[in-house]
């Protein structure tokens, strides 16, 4: 016997799941956070264990988009007759939620309705007659507040009751095993609502005024600008603060004496010393450049990247829980359509500034293969993850913020160009945006803290092994002389195209595995700031890191991934080469800008000509 959680998007299914099972899952205040099924288990009153499954949200059982198809397929495929559905319902939007409830009742499967977000009904002046609703539907109805855990015990009790046959497991005969039409369902819902729900009008609260402002054109743009500005500054402030006041003192005061001792014990030379401690600069360990497993291998992920990861996820998680991201999606819907996607595609992009792996998974909120392909390609090319950003800020920030601005400006132009060109040349068009805008909610500190911790832990679990593996691998390649060989082979390419020395090949090789270490490896090469800028751009865009590649391969399939990778290589080499030409003052920047505009015009007009030809051919055949 299983327990399946079913309900509309953003009603708190994952919060109920996490309460029932004790499993930590990411929950946010917008639809589409859960894109996969999550399984866990819960203990019933009698001590028996039941499997619990959390499904992506769906508005109805009539499939109208990809995410819903997945949820509905699961219902059909997984459900046995003795299973129990917990229909999680947003009590503040009972009317809309009841549509799915009625459809589920029609299936005749034993069910408990959880009236979630119950505490919010009070603030909104909504009162629901639970006993009456239970009478009408014929299944147990339990008010819950999954964020605080209220009502979850009662929910579990009702599940046990259903299993033991202590209460009727079957919906009112009126709905059971019937197939109502959509109109019949809505009229039925109208009658139910009239009987169980009363709403009293209240004055507009400050929160509602802010909600309204954030979706108005001008107010929305101003709020978006303020939000982005504050977010960026907060991340930098927190990240730098953690590094300057906690991590650097810790590494200098505790780690340095320790690894120095280990180095001395190893005899300050030899293969093992070079692997563990790395190269000494003036007899001292340099955490950024020594490239030993115990020095740079630990320093990069813990002292340089982790503080920024932590800071970024505090800010991102707050924005998520407040419910800001769908509002951003509405504001940028226009722009995103020009790039072949609808506004919701901004959510994977924003996630991508943290880590591309969850961002690649979040591309599932997009309905079509075309949109997913464009989104994944743009994400890989133009959105640097926080591991990389932290390193770029750490290494290049000291030369001045204008260089960071050049890197991000070039990446942004690449991002726009790739989206625009793909949207113009790929057949098909973007899907329309239909998205629920959640109310602003005050983030729950405990839930927020848990989410930040989960994400930081995921970073540690994923990044540290890759970083250590990468450092080991590179050291072995150096020792074996393979890097020198590659450097010689690629020297004309590196210096001709990017103005980089042959040794930069090691960083580019590392970039396949981890971006942070790859950027870090540029530091001992003694590059000029112009060279660093070019290298950082190429490193971001030419290939996603290994972990992302694996996820994208699964999401896009091998053929599309191959196409996407080719685009990444061409675009990044092109952009790196052009940036080098401009920075080395070989070609004035305005020529490049004119060139890009000509390219856009060419692509656009030839795509239009092709479309016109096609439609003419279709007219002829008709």
């Amino acid at each position, binding site marked *: 016997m299983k327990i399946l959680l079913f309900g509309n998007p953003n009603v708190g299914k994952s919060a109920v799941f996490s309460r029932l099972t004790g499993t930590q899952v990411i929950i946010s205040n917008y639809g589409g956070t859960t894109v996969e099924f999550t399984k866990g288990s819960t203990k019933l009153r009698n001590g028996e264990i039941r499997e619990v499954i959390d499904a992506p949200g769906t508005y109805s059982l009539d499939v109208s988009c990809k995410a819903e198809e997945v949820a509905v397929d699961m219902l059909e495929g997984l459900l046995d007759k003795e299973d129990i559905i917990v229909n999680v319902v947003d009590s503040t939007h009972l009317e*809309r939620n009841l549509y799915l409830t009625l459809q589920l009742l029609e299936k005749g499967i034993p069910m408990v309705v959880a009236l979630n977000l119950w505490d919010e009904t009070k603030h909104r002046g909504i009162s629901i007659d639970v006993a009456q609703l239970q009478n009408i539907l014929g299944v147990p109805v339990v008010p819950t507040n999954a964020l605080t855990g209220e009502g979850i015990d009662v929910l579990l009790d009702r599940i046990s009751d259903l299993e033991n046959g202590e209460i009727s497991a079957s919906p009112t005969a009126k709905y059971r095993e019937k197939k109502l039409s959509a109109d019949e369902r809505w009229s039925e819902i109208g009658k139910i609502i009239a009987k169980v729900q009363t709403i009293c009008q209240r004055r507009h609260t400050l929160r509602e005024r802010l909600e309204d402002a954030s979706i108005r054109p001008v107010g929305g743009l101003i709020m978006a600008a303020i939000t982005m500005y504050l977010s960026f500054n907060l991340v930098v402030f927190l990240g730098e603060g953690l590094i300057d006041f906690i991590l650097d003192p810790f590494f200098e005061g505790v780690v340095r004496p320790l690894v120095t001792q280990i180095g001395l014990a190893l005899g300050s030379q030899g293969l093992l010393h070079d692997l563990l401690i790395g190269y000494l600069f003036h007899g001292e360990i340099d955490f950024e450049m020594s490239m030993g497993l115990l020095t740079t291998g630990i320093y990069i992920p813990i002292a340089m990247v982790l503080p920024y990861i932590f800071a970024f996820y505090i800010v991102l998680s707050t924005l998520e829980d407040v419910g800001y991201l769908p509002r951003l999606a*509405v504001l940028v819907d226009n722009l995103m359509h020009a790039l072949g996607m609808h506004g919701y595609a901004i959510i994977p992009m924003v996630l991508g500034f943290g880590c591309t792996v969850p961002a690649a998974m979040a591309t599932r909120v997009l309905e079509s293969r075309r949109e997913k392909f464009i989104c994944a390609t743009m994400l890989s090319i133009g959105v640097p993850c926080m591991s990389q950003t932290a390193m770029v800020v750490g290494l290049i920030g000291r030369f001045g913020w204008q260089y960071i601005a050049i890197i991000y400006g070039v990446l942004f132009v690449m991002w726009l160009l790739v989206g625009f060109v793909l949207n113009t040349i790929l057949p098909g068009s973007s899907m329309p945006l239909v998205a629920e*805008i959640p109310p602003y909610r005050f983030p729950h500190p405990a839930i927020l803290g848990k989410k930040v911790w989960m994400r930081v832990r995921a970073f540690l679990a994923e990044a540290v092994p890759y970083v250590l593996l990468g450092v080991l691998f590179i050291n072995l390649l150096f020792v074996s002389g393979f890097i020198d060989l590659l450097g010689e082979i690629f020297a004309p390419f590196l210096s001709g195209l990017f103005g980089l020395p042959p040794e930069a090949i090691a960083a580019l090789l590392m970039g396949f595995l981890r971006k942070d270490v790859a950027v870090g490896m540029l530091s001992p090469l003694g590059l000029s700031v112009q060279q660093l800028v070019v290298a950082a751009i190429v490193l971001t865009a030419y290939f996603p890191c290994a972990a992302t590649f694996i996820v994208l391969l699964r999401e896009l399939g091998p053929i599309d991934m191959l196409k996407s990778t080719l685009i990444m290589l061409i675009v990044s080499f092109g952009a790196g080469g052009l940036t080098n030409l401009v920075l080395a003052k070989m070609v004035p920047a305005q020529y490049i800008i004119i060139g890009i505009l000509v390219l856009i015009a060419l692509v656009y007009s030839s795509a239009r000509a092709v479309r016109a030809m096609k439609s003419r051919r279709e007219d002829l055949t008709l």
Partner: protein
Amino acid sequence: MKKSPVIPLIKVEAGEAVRVIGVHGGPGLASRLEALGIRPGTNIVKKSAIFMGGPVIVEVHGTQIAIGHGMAARTMVETIN
């Protein structure tokens, strides 16, 4: 009583309450809106519209929903007096 004219949702002023008459589009389009409660006979309030062909935001049964411009252009409504 004079019958109010049927107009597309994009032509409605922000803040105005309207009744949905029908959705002119494929069955996929209509069913996506239907699942969110935007269906013939429902009263909705247009909250705002983002300029330059951006989405239209409507309130249906207390929920705010953003609808792409193209879809809003094909959602026909009449004003409620």
